[in-house]
């Protein structure tokens, strides 16, 4: 018997530790399971990606002395504030789904995952609606530096949220098929990290693009 199979058996036999942990692979080089470490390394590269966008915005707006319109007159702050709150709520439901997966509570896992998918979809829907309204008011990506940077940053963020919603829908389908039974929470934790990161980026973007 290999050490890994023994570990699986030991974890299952103990009856305390969720049995499926060891089944999803040995821990990575730093003692963190591979999917999670991989997600964190990916998120580190995402930090650089969004820094490039946000950094460019800061430099173009404050560092280069360009004239800038009153963002609060162009954008709809109250609607976006509510939308921000919806995204934060979906982050909470995600973490609730993770907690349910850890304690092998399948009913709540499915319920919270569904809530998260719906929350994310509402966020994307409201953003698309805002885009349509802005375009009707003549605010386009070609409307000066603010138009260009606004659509680039919120567009890339919206793309991330959309990817998150699609991935999460897939994870939810898997949850309904019972793929995360027996305390097998690794998949939930990994997609959750991505989802919270997208939420975190929006918190920064909302402040720096809409409010300031």
């Amino acid at each position, binding site marked *: 018997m290999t050490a890994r199979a023994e*570990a699986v058996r030991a*974890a299952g036999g*103990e009856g305390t530790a969720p049995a499926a942990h060891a089944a999803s692979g*040995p821990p990575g080089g730093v003692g963190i399971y591979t999917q999670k470490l991989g997600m964190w390394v990916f998120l580190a590269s995402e930090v650089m990606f969004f820094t490039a966008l946000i950094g460019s915005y800061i430099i173009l707006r404050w560092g280069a002395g360009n004239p800038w319109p009153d963002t609060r007159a162009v954008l709809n702050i109250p609607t976006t504030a509510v939308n921000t709150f919806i995204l934060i709520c979906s982050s909470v439901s995600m973490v609730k789904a993770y907690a349910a997966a*850890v304690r092998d509570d399948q009913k709540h896992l499915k319920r919270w995952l569904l809530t998260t998918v719906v929350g994310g979809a509402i966020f994307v829907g409201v953003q698309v609606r805002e885009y349509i309204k802005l375009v009707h008011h003549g605010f386009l990506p070609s409307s000066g530096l603010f138009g260009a940077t606004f659509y680039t940053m919120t567009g890339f963020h919206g793309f991330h949220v959309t990817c998150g919603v699609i991935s999460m829908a897939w994870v939810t389908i898997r949850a309904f098929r019972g793929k995360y039974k027996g305390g097998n929470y690794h998949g939930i934790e990994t997609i959750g990290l991505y989802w919270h990161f997208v939420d975190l980026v929006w918190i920064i973007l909302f402040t720096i693009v809409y409010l300031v």
Partner: protein
Amino acid sequence: MERAMTAAPAGPEAAEHKAPNYVAVWAALAVLTMVELAVVYMGLPRHVMILALVFLALWKAMLVALYFMHLRFEPKRLLYVVLAPLPLALILVIAVMHGFRK
């Protein structure tokens, strides 16, 4: 068998710590968002407003990273992976900003 058990540190590593009070973090995020809106519509001097907003945004981001992404409960070696891009990000912004100076 004993050897196998010690060789499986991937066990309940995430479940070991007590789950934080997620609802309290959620409430804090909601309140901080409302404070942000209040700061915007209060008519403070512009630089005070910007400073307050950046502070509040970083506070919210920290709450998400520490509790929702449970960085607070992770081993130090994962923190190094997470924090590695931050100095690089700073260098990137400073370098580009330097290029814009006339």
